[in-house]
């Protein structure tokens, strides 16, 4: 399986390459982009923006809240203990634990969503170039159908085009 990618020194050139690949008929999902920093000011850096993270955080918070409620009130009822003349289930004080677990649930849900949706942890793909850490932006296509068109689109953007043999 042959793959091809170019390394670009500026985001403008990377954007040109992405546009060129699209014009060459490469489907959006087959274009790979990698960089050492977010490029959200550029169109190519704004792909895959949709995320359920805020909703998942709310859901995580709700789960944490329920866990906090059960941990405090249910266990207080199961092992009744009178302290300082307070009721067995002390909602005022339980609110503190419920609040902390709500927030912890929201934080954990955000992290889990990040790891799941960003596919972390994962193995570093062979379709990767350490030059990215020197500020280069990688634009490429894994196993393109029309190799010449892809090469032309990448070369048109003055990228250092590299061919890469990938094991299937």
């Amino acid at each position, binding site marked *: 399986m042959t793959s091809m990618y170019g390394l670009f*020194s*500026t985001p*403008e050139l990377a954007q040109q390459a992405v546009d060129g690949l699209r014009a060459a008929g490469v489907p959006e999902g087959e274009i*790979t*982009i*990698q*960089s*050492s*920093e*977010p*490029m*959200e*000011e550029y169109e*190519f*850096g*704004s792909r*895959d923006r949709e*995320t359920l*993270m*805020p909703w998942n*955080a709310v859901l995580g918070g709700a789960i944490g809240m329920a866990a906090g409620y059960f*941990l*405090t009130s249910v*266990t*207080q009822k199961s*092992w009744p*203990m009178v*302290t*300082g003349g*307070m009721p067995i289930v*002390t909602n005022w*004080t*339980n609110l*503190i*634990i419920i*609040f*902390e*677990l709500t*927030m*912890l649930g*929201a*934080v954990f849900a*955000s*992290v889990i*969503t*990040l*790891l799941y*949706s*960003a*596919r*972390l*942890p*994962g193995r*570093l793909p062979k379709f*990767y170039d*350490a030059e*990215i*850490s*020197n*500020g280069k932006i990688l634009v490429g296509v894994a196993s393109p159908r029309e190799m010449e068109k892809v090469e032309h689109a990448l070369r048109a953007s003055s990228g250092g085009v590299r061919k890469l043999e990938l094991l299937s």
Partner: protein
Amino acid sequence: MTRKSDSSLTDDLLRPVFETSTKFYVTAAVLAVIVAAGFGTWFYQIYWGMGVTGDNWPVFWGLHETNFVFWIGISHAGTLISAILRIVNATWRRPVTRCAEVITAFALMIGAMFPLVHLGRPWLAWWLIPYPSERLLWPNYRSPLVWDFFAINTYLLSSLLFLALPAIPDFALIRDRTTGWRNWLYGKLSLGWQGTPRQWHRLESAMHMMALAIIPIAISVHTIVSFDFSMAVVPMWHSTIFGPYFVVGAIFSGIAALNIVMAIVRRMLHLEKYLQPIHFRNLGKLMLAMSLLWGYFVFNERLVTWYGNTPHEMAALWSTQLGRYSPMFWTMIFCNFILPFPLLTIRKLRSITATVIASCGVVIGMWLERFLIIVPSLSYKGTSYSWGTYLPRWPEIVIFGASFAAMALLYLLFSKFIPIISIWEMKVGEHSNIKVAAQVQESEAAGELV
């Protein structure tokens, strides 16, 4: 847009990770010896019992509790400030955030050690953890100490994640520039990070969501630490303003600690290009605002006590204003209010050195404040036959000193393994600056700006 600066920025910020000087080993060794002395003293205290400390009737909370509240307060600087600056998108935050977040992580760990140190029998600390006990008892959810357990651990876990997540792309940078065991280690730590637009966007979304959650968590932590005192009917503790008073004091001492740490890191790691006077100036302004707020709370608290004129409260109050503890009180006022005010307000005096001097004053002043909240109130609790005094003994002082050494050692080791300034965030900042400059140039060329 030019990207020529990328490489030099990365090299500058990775230099401390790749290059190790003799100074580093000597400093680390000295600090490790002090920390070891602290642990040794703790074991001595465990072996001989709490009698070796100055804790005695009626003052059973002394230096260990002072240090607990002090370090939890210091921890407020980092993650809270970083979260606020992230949410308001303050561009100058970029070199500051990780320096600050590291303080939170380590200060919380050190702070959380002190209740264990004070337990006397630290092997029973797990009784605080909620679990279905064979003793048919669950931890008492009405106890502020159990609230502490939940609040501190929530803040610690959130802060560690808040610190670790943006470090993943930097681990990937180190992975790509190393070989051998370092490549293996940073490869594992970077979790296979590739830097795709999806990964960047998810990381930024997660950071934003966590920042939103961490602000109320941070406020709750120090409020709950204040509940350790205000829930007790002890003179000058049973106060409704203790929550916000503690939160303001914590942010105040936290910013001061951050200024000191930034100045040391700047000098030792030669990061003058990145930690610039503007960062100290902006944090200095924030510290000044906190100084004023803190002064307001101190006045408020003391005025209400004085006006109430309750005999046992007045005894505690006068001991700090004119009595045995008054030298500490007036030193605190000088350090927290009188010293920072001219240094941070008069333009001619404002400099990195002045900010650091003011910050050192604030750290000393806030430690004294913690001591003055705890000890005088316990000394003058109840009727006069139960009044007493407290003087710390050498084990408490050694452990106190070792906690500072532990903070310095942990910070030193962290900066050896992880860039102390987030590289990718700095790159984003540099490009934004270049973009803004280009827009200004374009506007000038078009005659829009005169």
